[in-house]
């Protein structure tokens, strides 16, 4: 019996170790799903990067479509706005329209796609646009750069969600260039990049490198967020280990009290029953109950790890979204120009 108990204990330890360490690195990573609410009225209040159209331009086909597109966009009807901007581009083909006007039309299409949540289409429209021609002369150049960072982040997340390999996102070259031209704006875009990819280690390294004696409110808020998250974060490995040592302890660690009690009772009951059946010589019943016990035990370890990951994801997404909305770190909240 002692030998039996020793071997069973050893076997359980091996299974528990395998379950805790596991072959899944993704449980320790956060899946950022950040969102911000933008009202059409806040977009409508922003100035246009384009100067007002002249009388002749307003009377032209492309000018009318452009004004209609801007009007739809200010109401929040981005799909109609895109149609009008593209119709304006079609009419402008036959006229000798200035490069700047073409850029304003391309900007209208790009921004409408971004506000409509169509990030892949926004990137495609940018890559085929005249915004690439002398972009620094475009008044909304900084806004454009920040929005490109957001579009790249969102399309990357979508690819990851589709199961495609994405690897670690490297810092876009746009950000250091933006920091040189406008340090405060560039810093916010960098914060957005790190937070939207949940790269807290890189963010903390960056914050540590900033040697300003009086950091601004945004930097202070981000430091507090990082510290707060480090304190409240749950370790999936620890959750699995606790549940392996004492069924239910992992669930309790992440805050699921009822599940902890249920797990403990089920495991104790089925271990006792299995042991009793084997003692009595009822092998078949012993195997059945041992089979169920293996399910409760291993399932509990896996479940505790998944629960820790779910806790981390929810905590991060709620707090980070709130922080980024309050500090206006989302590029769409940092706009200086719109339609």
């Amino acid at each position: 019996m002692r030998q039996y108990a020793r071997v069973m204990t050893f076997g359980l330890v091996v299974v528990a170790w395998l379950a805790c360490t596991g072959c899944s690195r993704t449980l320790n990573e956060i899946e950022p799903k950040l969102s911000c609410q933008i009202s059409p009225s806040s977009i409508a209040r922003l100035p246009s990067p384009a100067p007002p159209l002249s009388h002749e331009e307003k009377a032209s086909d492309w000018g009318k479509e452009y004004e209609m597109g801007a009007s739809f966009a200010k109401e929040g009807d981005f799909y109609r706005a895109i149609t009008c901007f593209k119709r304006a581009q079609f009419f402008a083909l036959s006229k000798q329209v200035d490069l700047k006007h073409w850029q304003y039309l391309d900007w209208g299409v790009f921004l409408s796609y971004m506000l409509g949540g169509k990030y892949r289409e926004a990137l495609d429209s940018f890559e085929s646009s005249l915004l690439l021609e002398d972009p620094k002369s475009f008044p909304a150049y900084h806004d454009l750069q920040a929005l490109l960072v957001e579009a790249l982040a969102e399309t990357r997340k979508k690819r990851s969600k589709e199961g495609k390999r994405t690897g670690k996102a490297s810092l876009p070259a746009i950000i250091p260039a933006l920091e040189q031209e406008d340090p405060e704006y560039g810093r916010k875009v960098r914060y957005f990049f790190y937070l939207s990819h949940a790269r807290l280690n890189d963010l903390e390294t960056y914050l540590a490198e900033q040697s300003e004696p009086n950091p601004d409110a945004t930097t202070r808020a981000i430091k507090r967020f990082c510290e707060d998250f480090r304190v409240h974060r749950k370790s999936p490995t620890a959750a699995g280990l606790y549940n392996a040592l004492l069924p239910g302890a992992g669930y309790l660690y992440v805050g699921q009290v009822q599940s902890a009690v249920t797990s403990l009772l089920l495991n104790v009951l089925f271990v006792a029953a299995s042991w009793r059946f084997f003692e009595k010589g009822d092998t078949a019943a012993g195997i059945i109950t041992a089979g169920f016990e293996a399910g409760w035990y291993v399932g509990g370890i896996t479940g505790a790890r998944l629960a820790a990951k779910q806790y981390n994801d929810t905590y991060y997404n709620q707090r980070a979204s709130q922080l980024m909305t309050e500090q206006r770190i989302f590029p769409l909240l940092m706009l200086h120009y719109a339609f």
Partner: protein
Amino acid sequence: MRSKLALSLLLLLFCSLPLLGEEPWVASPQEASDPPPSYLAGMEAIIAFHQQVITHADGPRSHFFPSSSSYMLTAIRRFGFVQGFCLGCDRLIRENSDEWVYRTIRTRDGDLLKWDPVPLPQNF
């Protein structure tokens, strides 16, 4: 005693196989419309019997969407018998009124259920 010991160790090894990356009754990637492999048909029949006969005795009682029986069925199809069974057991342990961090979803009848889908293979 030795035979019981051997059987118990075999059972433990069987349950640890998914953790080693090997799944004896692996559910290979298949379309949702494909019929289940024959070796999983038995388990699916038991779950189907519960969903069609037993559960109607006292009505829907799950606190989650999808229900625990659907969750186990999907988990078995997605991850294989052993891993799917373990995920299903975890779901049954959590089948309670703990609010916790779950997202919620309201059914057509107005019931507020906790949204807890089976994890995707790339996230597990």
